[in-house]
């Protein structure tokens, strides 16, 4: 027979005690009462036990002295009985202390139901003994169902654990069972609604007075929110790391003294920094960071770095840095200090951009430009000769024809001197025009002769308009001059500027060939801009430009018989004067070509009072 509960044990013990009292009274043998004393001591307590010893003493006294058996040895036997009873009481008292302590603890300590979260207890072999009502509530089963589950198999609780966590949890639990070490485990548990939440399970072994494990008591806390926050934090950290490692730039951190202590992955990959030895090697290496730069750049880099670190100023510099394959590549480096509220530098943040491709592209572009310019000069030599020939042919033709006329008037009979003289004057004018063309061409091709000096652009514009007066009239173009009378002088070459204005105006006139004769108007505006430049705008009322960006390209022309050189030449002249030339379409129709030139330094303070008279 197995007595599983205290109550059963107590009932049986009391029955035995009562039986022994009865036996003592029947057989008049007081020693049987010792059993009853023992039962009371064990079942009720040591105070009751002491009373039981007294009662048993009285009872045995009554038995021993009420008997007619005689008093022989009765007093001695009573004394021996009382001593034996007290001895028994004392022995039971000292050995019952632990158990009493347990009972006191059991009664006054918090119950399983009082534990926040989920409380549980397991027997020494690992079988779950009990769980708190909170656990039942969480997993959503009744106590009876739980009892059935717990009776079902050894590790019935695993069915509530997330399948991914079962194995690890079991392993830890078995380990603790074997070693007696506390179990600390985190796993997901299924709630009554089927969702899983993270829990932290903490269990310790309960040991008896011999140190043997009697059972396990544990507490399971819901750490889901914490876990999620942690994982979100980790995710953010990971993303930040990913960001730092994937942004297409090299990032590094330095101590206030300028010693690098962190390089992002891209930097590590680029420079081939040995990440295993990064710290000591990096420190050594970058303490003399400049060593990594191209020998030609080192002195400059060193000076810039030292200045920046000494003054705590942000830094930007460009230099060639050695890549892991030993190739020197152009790098754009920038450092910024991070300061605390007192302004003390905590660390330096640095980024390096690999700008080698751009630098090389720019270089090759520049070279290509030069080559193109040279090629253009060579290739267009024949074209230019045609153009020059055309420019010269007109005055030459006039010279030839007038000379023929001159000769004939003189050879006439009688010679017509008045006619001859008139023609002679024309010849001189024609020859002058031819000489002018030559001067312009020379000015265009030999820069040394084109010396910039202060010129009045208004005067240039008026001169060109005079030159083209015939052309304007024959094309029925209405000219609208809006010249700023206070226009400051610009430093430029007069002949070249004339060439520019001439080309642009001529271009404007030609752009209006197929426009209604009454709608042909050309507006020339000169104005001063606030950025220290003067602007000249030529606006026609033609059909506008199909491609405003391209019209300055060499050999780009919209005219069937044009060479496409005029505006390209203008462009190079204006650029040679550090000015700008651009074209755009006007909303009201037509195109506008504008160039701006810097104001002559000595003339930048000139006011309108000293200006030339307007048109």
């Amino acid at each position: 027979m197995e007595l599983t509960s205290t109550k059963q044990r107590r009932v049986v013990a009391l029955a035995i005690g009562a039986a022994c009292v009865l036996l003592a009274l029947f057989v008049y043998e007081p020693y049987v009462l010792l059993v009853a004393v023992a039962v009371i001591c064990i079942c009720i307590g040591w105070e009751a036990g002491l009373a039981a010893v007294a009662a048993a003493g009285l009872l045995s006294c009554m038995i021993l002295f009420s008997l007619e058996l005689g008093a022989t040895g009765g007093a001695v036997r009573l004394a021996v009985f009382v001593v034996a009873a007290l001895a028994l009481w004392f022995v039971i008292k000292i050995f019952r202390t632990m158990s009493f302590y347990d009972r006191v603890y059991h009664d006054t300590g918090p119950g399983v139901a009082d534990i926040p979260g989920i409380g549980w207890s397991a027997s020494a072999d690992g079988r779950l003994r009990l769980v708190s009502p909170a656990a039942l509530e969480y997993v959503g089963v009744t106590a009876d169902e739980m009892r059935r589950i717990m009776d079902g198999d050894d590790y019935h609780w695993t069915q509530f654990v997330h399948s991914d966590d079962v194995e690890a949890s079991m392993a830890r639990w078995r380990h603790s069972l074997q070693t007696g070490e506390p179990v600390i485990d985190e796993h997901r548990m299924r709630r009554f609604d089927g969702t899983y939440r993270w829990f932290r399970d903490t269990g310790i072994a309960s040991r008896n007075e011999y140190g043997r494990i009697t059972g396990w008591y544990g507490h399971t806390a819901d750490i889901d929110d914490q876990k999620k926050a942690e994982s979100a934090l980790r995710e953010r950290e990971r993303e930040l790391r990913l960001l730092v490692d994937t942004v297409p730039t090299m990032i590094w951190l330095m101590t206030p003294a300028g010693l690098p202590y962190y390089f992002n992955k891209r930097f590590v990959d680029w420079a081939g920094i040995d990440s295993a030895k990064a710290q000591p090697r990096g420190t050594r290496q970058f303490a003399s960071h400049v060593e990594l730069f191209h020998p030609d750049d080192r002195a400059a880099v060193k000076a810039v770095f030292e200045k920046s670190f000494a003054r705590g100023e942000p830094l930007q510099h460009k230099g060639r840095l050695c890549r892991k394959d030993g190739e020197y590549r152009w790098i754009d480096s920038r450092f910024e200090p991070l300061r605390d509220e007192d302004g003390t530098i905590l660390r330096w943040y640095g980024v390096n951009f690999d700008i080698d491709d751009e630098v090389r592209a720019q270089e090759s572009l520049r070279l290509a430009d030069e080559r193109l310019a040279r090629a253009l000069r060579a290739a267009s030599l024949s074209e230019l000769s045609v153009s020059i020939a055309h420019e010269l042919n007109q005055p030459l033709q006039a010279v030839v024809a007038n000379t023929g006329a001159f000769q004939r008037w003189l050879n006439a009979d009688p010679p017509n001197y008045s006619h001859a003289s008139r023609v002679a004057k024309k010849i001189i004018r024609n020859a002058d025009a031819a000489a002018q063309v030559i001067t312009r061409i020379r000015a265009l091709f030999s820069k040394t002769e084109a010396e910039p000096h202060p010129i009045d652009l208004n005067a240039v514009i008026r001169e060109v308009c005079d030159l083209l007066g015939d052309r304007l009239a024959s094309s029925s173009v209405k000219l609208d001059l809006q010249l700023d009378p206070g226009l400051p002088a610009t430093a430029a070459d007069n002949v070249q500027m004339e060439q520019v204005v001439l080309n642009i105006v001529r271009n404007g006139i030609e752009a209006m060939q197929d426009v209604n004769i009454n709608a042909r108007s050309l507006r020339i505006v000169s104005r001063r801009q606030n950025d220290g430049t003067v602007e000249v705008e030529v606006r026609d009322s033609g059909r506008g430009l199909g491609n405003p960006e391209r019209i300055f390209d060499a050999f780009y022309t919209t005219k069937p018989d044009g060479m496409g050189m005029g505006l390209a030449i203008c462009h190079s002249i204006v650029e040679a004067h550090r000015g700008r030339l651009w074209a755009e379409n006007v909303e009201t129709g037509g195109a506008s070509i504008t160039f701006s030139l810097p104001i002559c330094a000595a003339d930048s303070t000139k006011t309108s009072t000293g200006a030339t008279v307007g048109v």
Partner: protein
Amino acid sequence: MGVATSGIADSPITILVDDDATVRDALEELLNSVGIDTMSFSSGQELLDAKLPDRPGCLVLDVRMPGLSGLDLQHVLATKGILTPIVFLTGHGDIAMGVQAMKAGAVDFLTKPVRDQTFLDAVSTAIANDVARRAASTVSRKNVALYEILTPREREVLRLVVSGAINKQIASDLGISEITVKLHRSNMMKKMNARSISHLFNVWQSLPVDSR
């Protein structure tokens, strides 16, 4: 538009079109010095808008001009039936343009700067061509008038005579007697003012093809 004229109605006149005033002026000066009247325009459109004198002469056109180019102008004039001979001047010699101009009936294609005598020769040739053309067209007009008074039968006889047929063949072709052919033939010769068969043939040749 500039006009320099000696005022004689039938004296030749040269019409210049060039956008460059100095060239225009110089060429006029040269032509005037040899006694040729001139008239000048700065663009093709101006020429087309103007009323041109009915005088023998020629046109001198610059190839490169804003608006209508010289070649465009040649084409427009041709479509208008103005057959005045043309001499072209061009700034830079362009063979393709020259070929195109000559194919379209230009008298000459000159490259600037052209020598004065060369220019004057070309203009003279053009003027001579125009005089001959105008004369030919006068004779032609006269002969057409004569041809138009012929009866249909006489025209048939004329066509067969100039194709070389003898009276007998004509008679059999037209299905009439030889006597009647002779009668028609003598009437036709009289009406056409033809003294001989060869003269009649020249008259026939001067007739415009579409009126034959």
